[in-house]
């Protein structure tokens, strides 16, 4: 069992290193706006005339527009606006593309927003779900593996330490602080007004 845990710790660590470090670093960027301030967003807008095949439904029309105008990014669910227009969004780290299809379906307004480093990191941190082409499905899979890897990494690490021949007092104290503080925080949020 101990050998298995060592292998899990090593393999998850080496295999998921890039994704796990990316999530923690991008999380740091998100919660430390003073260290990583927001910069300017470059925006550009263009209007294109379209002839969307009549047989396409709302979602298929979004795919058609994305293909026609090379809008690359993870597709978000289409939004039908009250005035009859439909908004499609395609996001990828650093870039957000919005296509606003007119109610008469004859023109589409495309806005491209290119973000600064901070928003690039936020983009990396926030992409999730299993939507879009194979690239985004692969991203969703790596996201899940990295998430599960965090749990496996922690559990296998504690297991290896717990079954080691020697355990120093500092490790005990650290583990007690980690568990104690986390439980205190959970109870604090559940019980305090």
């Amino acid at each position, binding site marked *: 069992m101990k050998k298995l845990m060592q292998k899990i710790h*090593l*393999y998850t*660590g*080496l*295999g*998921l*290193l*890039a*994704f*796990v*470090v*990316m*999530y*923690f670093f991008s*999380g*740091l960027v*998100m*919660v*430390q706006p003073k260290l990583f301030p927001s910069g300017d967003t470059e925006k550009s807008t263009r209007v294109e005339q379209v002839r969307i095949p009549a047989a396409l439904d709302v979602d298929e029309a979004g795919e058609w527009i994305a293909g026609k105008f090379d809008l*690359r*990014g*993870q597709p978000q669910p289409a939004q039908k606006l009250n005035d009859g227009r439909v908004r499609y969004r*395609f996001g990828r*780290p650093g870039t957000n593309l919005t296509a606003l299809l007119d109610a008469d379906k004859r023109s589409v307004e495309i806005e491209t927003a290119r973000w600064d480093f901070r928003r690039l990191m936020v983009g*990396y941190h926030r*992409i*999730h*779900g299993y939507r879009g082409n194979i*690239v*985004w499905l692969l*991203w*969703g899979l790596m996201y899940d593996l*990295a*998430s*599960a*890897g*965090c*749990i496996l990494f*922690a559990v296998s*690490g*504690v297991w290896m*330490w717990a079954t080691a021949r020697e355990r*120093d007092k*500092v*490790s*005990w104290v*650290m*583990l007690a*602080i*980690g*568990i104690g*503080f*986390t439980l205190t*925080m*959970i109870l*604090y*949020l*559940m019980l*305090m*007004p």
Partner: protein
Amino acid sequence: MRKFLSKIHIWLGMLCAPYMIIFGFSSLHFNHHFSFVETGQHSVNWERQIAVADTSDNKVLAERVRLDLGLMGWVPWWEYRRGEDNSFRFIVPRPGKSYTIKVNPERTLASVEELRYGPLKVINSLHAFGHLPGSNMVKYWSWYTNICVFFVIFAGVSGVYFWSKRKDETLIGWLLLAGVSGGSLLLMIFVWIRG
């Protein structure tokens, strides 16, 4: 040097193990929206006499009532509702609880519907959480989170260093490091540039 790095790796690992589990679980929940996370929530209704000065500024009024009731949480502007009789309703959400508060026109009585979330939802909210109005304790969670962020980066570097000193597991190690982690880096660059 190796022994010292190993000790730091273990000590910080012990400290941050609970956060790693919370981070992993909450991340999985963001991707899959597990219904069982929502279990265990229930609401409680209560009333309390208050003494707050009235004002036409909704934000100020909401903050005054929140402070008078001794609640922690935000007072989002989009949840303010003024009745024709000058009654006032707002919401104080926060991890763990959400309060829907109705204040009478005289500003003397607050009727509160307190929604209490289950433990898994609270755990989920600890993913990234560093500030909560009315709470001094939450900032310590932010410190803890920051320590764990640095630990993960350190653990990655020191873990590769420890592995590089080993004589076994080299082939599979290289396959994982170069193949999977290297491939992950290429994927990140690809979605950034190409999408």
